[in-house]
């Protein structure tokens, strides 16, 4: 009841502010008249009486203020009033407002940009129905639990569980898409027929798959296309349903278009075309090595694992229950099928968490970046707080008068905080724009084309907006609270008499203590030192990485993938095609030599094979695993070697020296005795102290076929630049045919100018081959350096930003201090101090602050940079060169920043100084 009345009164106060104000005015005026009359009755002259009344009413403004506080709309009303007042104050000091807004915009913008990244990669959920009920069911082993499953396993999971309402399975696949006019490579997804239904995704146009379309192998060549592909390739034609496409040479009919925001169940992976599982044998390219033969039917085999599985939990079933049920099921399967399923596990994990291993890496990168931009923002806050403190000192008189007029301290603090919030919101708005721009810039030119194999949606959403708003408010409070408290300290008398007395720290008396402003500068120096040292470490790491010898000469080498496995060539056709390509390309003017390889060095892909040495114990039956996705860095298990089939002239084209033995030649053809060339690490590991030439090895188990080592090649880098030396074995392509080869050529002139000619030659042999990914070898090399370079650039830029902010802060504090001490300096000079003495005096003051900051910063950096160890190559996280060098750099910049105010102090004219006060 009481509250209701209060609310009504306040609301009335707010709505009828004008009239309430007028009533108040009128009431007080009436009082004044009454008082005057009273005075007249007491025997005063009328005008005298009026003056006396006014005198007794001298506190009129204060009374009105007090009444307004009680009466007015309370919170809202004062807030509006404060905001108006704040806006006026800020508009009156455009320079100050601009500097603060820009400083904050830089800090907040950096945070917005990094948060957009975090949001896109870690927080966004895919647009499916009830995503919280969807979980991955990873196949795998105890040591590597987050892997893939086989189709029969999927069928068993589906038939024999009581925790999922349904399960889907899918697998990505590269497809050549021929829609009539042009041929492209697109990303496809082979999906079970219930894929869209279980995810709860309704096609935008047409329909999803019908249950019967996923029953007969090869029976229903139908496809759902993504919204993006529908727009780019079909001009958003609403009549697209029924259109025919050629996917890997097979005719398919479009039945539907996926919704615009849907790119598949996995965050970060996009698919352009969906085809039913039953069609997999037709679209799936034949496995490397046995081109053209029909793919072994993956759907009936439990051994090959290639599927991601996602399940929808039944209502009320928890993740733990699902995990328990799936573990039991996996154990049963490993008993029933010991050959294929021994030690196989099933691991349940929320869909929203993505691939837990990849997520772990992303979380650590995100954490690092957020920490870095967080530091930048802290430094910006310290700067702004410092500026506000300086301004508060100059607003001292205004504030004192307001205090004298009866404004309470709380009221003043609120007013000052409102101003801070206005500033931070302004900064936040600008920062948001800056952040969006940063994200756009970073995306368009930073990442090499295929560095992120995945696509993320970086667009602005509620999360990012909310984050920026929250950050702005917190920032405003953070930098505003201390200055507001200090400025509103009610020591009026002193303030009104003499401002200078209020800055004890700057007056240089004995036993001088740090002022709040000094502490802020110390903190800034320390924080920016931490950032700069991190940047320095990244820079040194990049230098180290750039100095790595890749073991081959990347200059003027072009690579061009020839994905004939999209064309369903037979082995003979394939061999023929490769021979023709090499013949024609080598004949081109400007081409020095040309060759083929399954995996170009540093492309991030490798083939790993189990090595068996003739005459020694065979460990296990041979196996091959294709690994695309950079298993680099980790050392290869002792019986595993990296391997690749290469064409003739491989070593010549890449300038890899052969240390012993011979190169492959035309005699090493199919049917001739098998040969191999190994690298130094291979030789050291398997033939220590022996001559590798003439040794016999097998990559296919103890039964052979055996390969004779005929040459020894120099070590190089194969998967990533940072990897430890790995064993490598080369086989002639003629003896181990593979279908997805990459053409590599060394040119005598500009390599990129030759690409169109090469493309023409290849197309004259096979017009249907998509040739989109021609890359310079040097690009591949720089791709390999990308993480190191990106780290150095990002953290370096933020570190420089921090350095600039800290220098500005130091400059500000010193200038202010010098201007406060003008009189003192004047006296000193009048007493005989020379310019040099004053210069030293001021510099000593500022360098004391810097020294404290550097000491603190070095300690903090020592503790913090350990966290960087995982990101650095060849540099210790406590690298003395980086620590000492950066500390010196920071000190020099600080010295420069305080030199200007110090020189100003040194040229003070004593006469002017005395008049100044």
């Amino acid at each position: 009841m009481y509250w209701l009345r209060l609310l009504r009164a306040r609301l009335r106060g707010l709505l009828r502010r004008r009239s309430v104000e007028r009533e108040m005015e009128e009431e007080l005026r009436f009082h004044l008249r009454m008082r005057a009359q009273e005075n007249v009755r007491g025997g005063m002259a009328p005008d005298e009486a009026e003056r006396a009344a006014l005198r007794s009413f001298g506190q009129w403004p204060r009374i009105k203020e007090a009444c307004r506080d009680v009466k007015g709309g309370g919170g809202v009303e004062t807030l509006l009033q404060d905001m108006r007042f704040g806006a006026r104050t800020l508009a009156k000091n455009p320079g100050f407002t601009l500097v603060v807004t820009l400083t904050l915009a830089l800090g907040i913008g950096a945070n917005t940009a990094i948060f957009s990244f975090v949001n896109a990669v870690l927080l966004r959920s895919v647009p499916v129905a009830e995503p919280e009920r969807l979980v991955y069911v990873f196949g795998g082993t105890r040591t590597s639990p987050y892997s893939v499953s086989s189709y029969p396993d999927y069928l068993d999971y589906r038939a024999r569980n009581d925790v999922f309402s349904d399960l889907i399975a899918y697998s990505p696949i590269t497809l050549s898409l021929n829609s009539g006019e042009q041929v492209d490579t697109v990303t496809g997804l082979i999906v079970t027929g219930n894929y869209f239904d279980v995810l709860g995704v309704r096609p935008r146009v047409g329909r999803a798959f019908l249950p019967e379309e996923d029953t007969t192998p090869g029976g229903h060549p139908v496809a759902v296309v993504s919204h993006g592909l529908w727009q780019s390739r079909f001009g958003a034609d609403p009549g697209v349903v029924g259109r025919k496409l050629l996917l890997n040479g097979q005719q398919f009919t479009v039945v539907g278009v996926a919704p615009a925001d849907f790119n598949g169940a996995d965050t970060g992976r996009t698919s352009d075309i969906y085809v039913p599982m039953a069609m997999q044998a037709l679209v799936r390219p034949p496995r490397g090595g046995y081109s053209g033969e029909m793919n072994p039917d993956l759907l009936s085999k439990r051994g090959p694992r290639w599927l991601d599985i996602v399940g929808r939990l039944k209502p009320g079933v928890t993740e733990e229950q699902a995990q328990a049920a799936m573990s039991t099921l996996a154990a049963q399967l490993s008993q029933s099928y010991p050959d294929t399923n021994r030690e196989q596990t099933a691991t349940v994990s929320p869909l929203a968490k993505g691939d837990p291993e990849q997520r772990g890496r992303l979380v650590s990168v995100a954490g690092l970046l957020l920490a870095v931009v967080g530091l930048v923002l802290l430094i910006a806050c310290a700067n702004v707080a410092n500026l506000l403190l300086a301004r508060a000192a100059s607003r001292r008189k205004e504030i004192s008068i307001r205090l004298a007029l009866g404004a309470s301290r709380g009221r003043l603090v609120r007013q000052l905080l409102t101003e801070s919030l206005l500033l931070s919101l302004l900064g936040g708005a600008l920062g948001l724009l800056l952040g969006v721009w940063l994200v756009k810039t970073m995306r368009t030119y930073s990442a090499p084309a295929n560095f992120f194999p995945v696509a993320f949606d970086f667009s602005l959403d509620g999360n990012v907006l909310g984050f920026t708003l929250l950050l702005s408010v917190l920032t405003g409070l953070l930098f505003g609270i201390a200055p507001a408290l200090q400025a509103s300290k009610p020591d009026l008398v002193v303030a009104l008499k003499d401002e200078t007395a209020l800055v004890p720290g700057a007056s240089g008396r004995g036993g001088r203590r740090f002022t709040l402003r000094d502490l802020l500068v110390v903190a800034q120096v320390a924080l920016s030192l931490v950032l700069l040292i991190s940047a320095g470490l990244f820079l040194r790491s990049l230098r180290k990485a750039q100095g790595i010898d890749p073991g081959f000469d990347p200059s003027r080498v072009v690579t061009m993938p020839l994905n004939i496995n999209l064309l369903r060539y037979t082995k003979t056709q394939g061999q023929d095609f490769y021979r023709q390509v090499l013949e024609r390309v080598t004949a081109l003017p400007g081409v020095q030599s040309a060759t083929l390889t399954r995996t170009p060095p540093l492309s991030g892909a490798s083939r790993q094979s189990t090595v068996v040495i003739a005459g020694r114990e065979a460990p296990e039956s041979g196996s091959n695993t294709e690994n695309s996705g950079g298993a680099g860095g980790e050392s290869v298990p002792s019986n595993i070697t990296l391997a690749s089939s290469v064409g003739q002239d491989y070593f010549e084209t890449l300038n890899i020296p052969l240390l012993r033995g011979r190169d492959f030649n035309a005699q090493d053809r199919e049917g001739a005795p098998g040969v191999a060339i190994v690298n130094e690490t291979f030789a050291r590991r398997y033939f220590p102290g022996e001559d590798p030439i003439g040794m016999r090895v097998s990559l296919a188990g103890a039964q052979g076929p055996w390969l004779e080592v005929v040459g020894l090649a120099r070590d190089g880098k194969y998967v990533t630049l940072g990897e430890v030396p790995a064993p490598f074995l080369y086989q002639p392509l003629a003896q181990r045919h593979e279908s997805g080869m990459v053409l590599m050529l060394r040119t005598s002139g500009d390599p990129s100018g030759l690409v169109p000619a090469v493309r023409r030659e290849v197309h004259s042999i096979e017009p249907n081959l998509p040739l989109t990914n021609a890359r310079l070898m040097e690009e591949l090399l720089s791709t390999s350096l990308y993480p190191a370079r990106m780290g150095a650039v990002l953290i370096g830029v933020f570190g420089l930003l921090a350095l600039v902010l800290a220098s500005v802060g130091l400059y500000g504090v010193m200038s202010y201090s010098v201007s406060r001490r003008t009189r003192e300096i004047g006296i000193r000079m009048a007493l005989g101090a020379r310019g040099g003495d004053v210069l030293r005096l001021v510099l000593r003051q500022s360098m004391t602050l810097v020294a404290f900051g550097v000491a603190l910063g070095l300690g903090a950096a020592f503790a913090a940079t350990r966290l960087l160890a995982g990101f650095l190559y060849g540099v210790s996280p406590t690298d003395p060169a980086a620590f000492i060098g950066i500390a010196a750099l920071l000190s020099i910049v600080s010295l420069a920043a305080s030199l200007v105010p110090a020189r100003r102090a040194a040229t003070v004219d004593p006469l002017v100084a005395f008049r100044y006060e």
Partner: protein
Amino acid sequence: MPKRDAKLLAGTLDMLILKALSLGPLHGFGVGQRIMQMSADALRVEEGSLYPALYRIEQQGWITSEWGVSDNNQRAKFYSLTRAGRRQLQVEEENWVRLAEAVFKVMQTN
């Protein structure tokens, strides 16, 4: 003005205002006058305290105000006690008497 006194005054002043109004509606100036009369010129209420107090009490719902005409034919805002205000006055009077007795006892102790 030292804050402590102001605070002590606030509660007492509210009570005095309620008491003054318990005899009939008055405008702000009148409230001050009546308190002065009732205290035989011992208590002068400063305008700076009076009006904020009036507004505060009105906000509490213990008094209401309406515009009327004063004895000398001028527009003035008149305050009058509400039912809740009457109750409040009673409560405050009792508290005050208890407090005054207690203080008196303390002061009587030798």
